[in-house]
């Protein structure tokens, strides 16, 4: 008889024993296969690292006024005599359009210094420092991305604004995830009257359209509060509007797991409520929670940005990307000073990356979804 194609030596050793790999590792593997999601993850890591070092990277305080630099364009950089330099700006008034325009005076180079002393800040909110990555001689400014109508450096504002924009939404979602998970779990697990009550409450909350509701809540905040307090309150508003969605999803998952055989087995073995919830239900729902949470972040960032953009969220003198958008919402900005629109691009990149990340996690966690 001829050699059968299937008559090969046993390849069992060569094939990995798929059964031995822990669940989360399989998830990580599946995640890595989606290249877009991995890119999203890396981009976010970069963004958050920049955010942590934002004060260090920003050359100027975000509210530093300098009318000599109003609407200054992005600084021109060159290498002169082996040194990295920018140039002093000559400010001239355009009589026709009544605008300032700038020319870089190439005869007056301004060397760029590194690790300069600048405004004071607290690294990570704790350590007082005043070193900044780069800067120029006292009395002049280097605006890598240009300046706004008061001469405030856009790069510095962008960096400082990241502290708000990247954290507020994140924390808001975190809070709503916690609230939503707890309530959803309680509702699904205990059922009966508790479940009914909570469901009715959620239904009522969801009867109000979310956008008008958070606009109303934000508008109700007194304008005189301190920046940190306002930050916290806006976070709270976003969290309070969002938790209902997650609570419903968690409840659904808990309901389906509660009726599972392994839960029944745990009950039969005498496990306590707490044990069942923490050891069986939550770990299973966790992956779903992470997905929903991650995908909720773009919405939360969008909400904060929208509120600030409308003047109801973060208010000056604080800065977030939404506040910067508000400054940019003029015809002049759009046509003559395009660097003011950079926050739009940054926002889109951030939001997109979160979405790619969330999508990748979702596929990794439940490939059959």
């Amino acid at each position: 008889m001829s050699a059968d194609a299937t008559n090969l030596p046993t390849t069992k050793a060569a094939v990995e024993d798929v059964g031995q790999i822990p669940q989360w590792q399989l998830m990580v593997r599946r995640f890595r296969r989606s290249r877009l999601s991995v890119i999203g993850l890396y981009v976010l890591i970069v963004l958050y690292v920049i955010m942590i070092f934002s004060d260090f990277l920003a050359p100027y305080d975000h509210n530093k006024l300098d009318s000599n630099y109003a609407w200054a364009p992005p600084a021109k950089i060159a290498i002169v005599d082996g040194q990295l330099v920018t140039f002093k700006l000559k400010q001239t008034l355009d009589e026709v359009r009544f605008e300032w325009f700038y020319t870089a005076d190439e005869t007056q180079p301004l060397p760029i210094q590194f690790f300069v002393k600048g405004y004071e800040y607290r690294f990570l909110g704790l350590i007082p420092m005043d070193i900044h990555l780069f800067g120029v001689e006292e009395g002049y400014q280097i605006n890598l991305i240009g300046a706004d109508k008061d001469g405030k450096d856009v790069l510095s504002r962008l960096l400082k604004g990241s502290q708000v924009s990247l954290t507020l939404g994140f924390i808001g979602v975190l809070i709503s995830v916690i609230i939503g998970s707890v309530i959803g779990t309680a509702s699904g697990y205990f059922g009966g009257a508790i479940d009914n009550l909570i469901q009715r409450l959620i239904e009522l909350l969801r009867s109000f359209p979310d956008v008008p509701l958070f606009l109303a809540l934000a508008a109700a905040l007194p304008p005189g509060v301190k920046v940190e307090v306002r930050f916290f309150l806006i976070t709270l508003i976003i969290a309070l509007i969002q938790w209902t969605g997650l609570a419903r999803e968690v409840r659904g998952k808990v309901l389906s797991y509660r009726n599972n055989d392994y839960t029944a087995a745990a009950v039969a073995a005498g496990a306590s409520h707490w044990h069942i919830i923490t050891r069986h239900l939550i770990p299973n729902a966790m992956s779903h929670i992470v997905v929903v949470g991650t995908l909720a972040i773009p919405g939360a960032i969008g909400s904060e940005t929208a509120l600030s953009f409308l003047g109801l969220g973060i208010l000056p003198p604080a800065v977030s990307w939404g506040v910067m958008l508000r400054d940019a919402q003029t015809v002049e900005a759009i046509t003559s000073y395009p660097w003011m629109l950079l926050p739009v691009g940054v926002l889109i990149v951030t939001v997109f990356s979160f979405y790619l990340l969330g999508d990748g996690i979702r596929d990794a966690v439940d490939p059959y979804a």
Partner: protein
Amino acid sequence: MTNSHTATSHDDVVRVEDLKVSFYTDLGVVRALNGVSFNIPRGKVLGIVGESGCGKSITGLSIMQLVHSAGRNEGGRILFREFADGDAVNILEYERNSAEMRGIRGNNISMIFQEPMSSLNPCYTVGNQIEEAILLHQTQDATEASKRAIDILTKVGMPNPARIASSYPHELSGGMRQRAMIAMALSCTPTLLIADEPTTALDVTTEANILELMRKMQEEIGTSIMFITHNMGVVAQICDEVAVMYLGRIVERASVDDIFYEPKHPYTISLLQSIPRLGRSRGRLASIEGSVPDPYSRVSGCPFHPRCPVAIQGVCDSEVPEETVVDAAKGHTVRCHLYT
């Protein structure tokens, strides 16, 4: 290449020759069918028996060309001879979604599945779904189709067929749904009915009723049946001939009596021994040593040799046994080195 020898009847409604199907997945290749050959005699019930994962369902699906798109056909023929005096066609030559293949499905060859609870579309009435098949293959007249649907529902013993026809699937019990499925499958009087574990999800009483129904239909309409199951008890009740499958190969084929009283292949013998029997003295349940190997691996030689109690060292682990005829007159064949 191997041929199936059946001395009892050269009139087979379906003859599968050396069918090979593989699935290419991210984690490796699964060789679901490794050269499956058997025949289904006209007018008889052939049982396909085996453990989970041996490939029995894939075999049935292959005949209907309904295997999941990840599965690839890598050789073999499936010959279908609709009429005893007609020609045989190789089903695999038709494209999956071609008019010819669709003309065969539901019309000449029908299939019913394991889960009656989810086999019917919840959005349409039972009658509507049966009429769909009739309108597709038999007549364009809606009233006529409706009449035939009620006819076939009556034939399968449904109480109040007209009311059933206008009911939705979720209004019926599991047993009734399976009856409805059978009615739908037989509505166009097919030459062959493939039943993929149709009673596994039913309780024993309902199961008995369904099996009796299938026997009755088979006699009345003359359909041949390919009955896929893992339950030897069911085999005894309904099958005329039996083919035993293991890891994508047929290891023994015989009449139902011979399988029970004169099993030759060690796997068949082990299967029969592991059936708990009433009245036996209490001892340990006999089970087959080891377990079915993981689908991604390939086993050299005879696929059963790692678990075979009488495996011959040096022979069984290196060479695939050929098919040998044990009793040509009764169509008993086996693939085992003990008999080569």
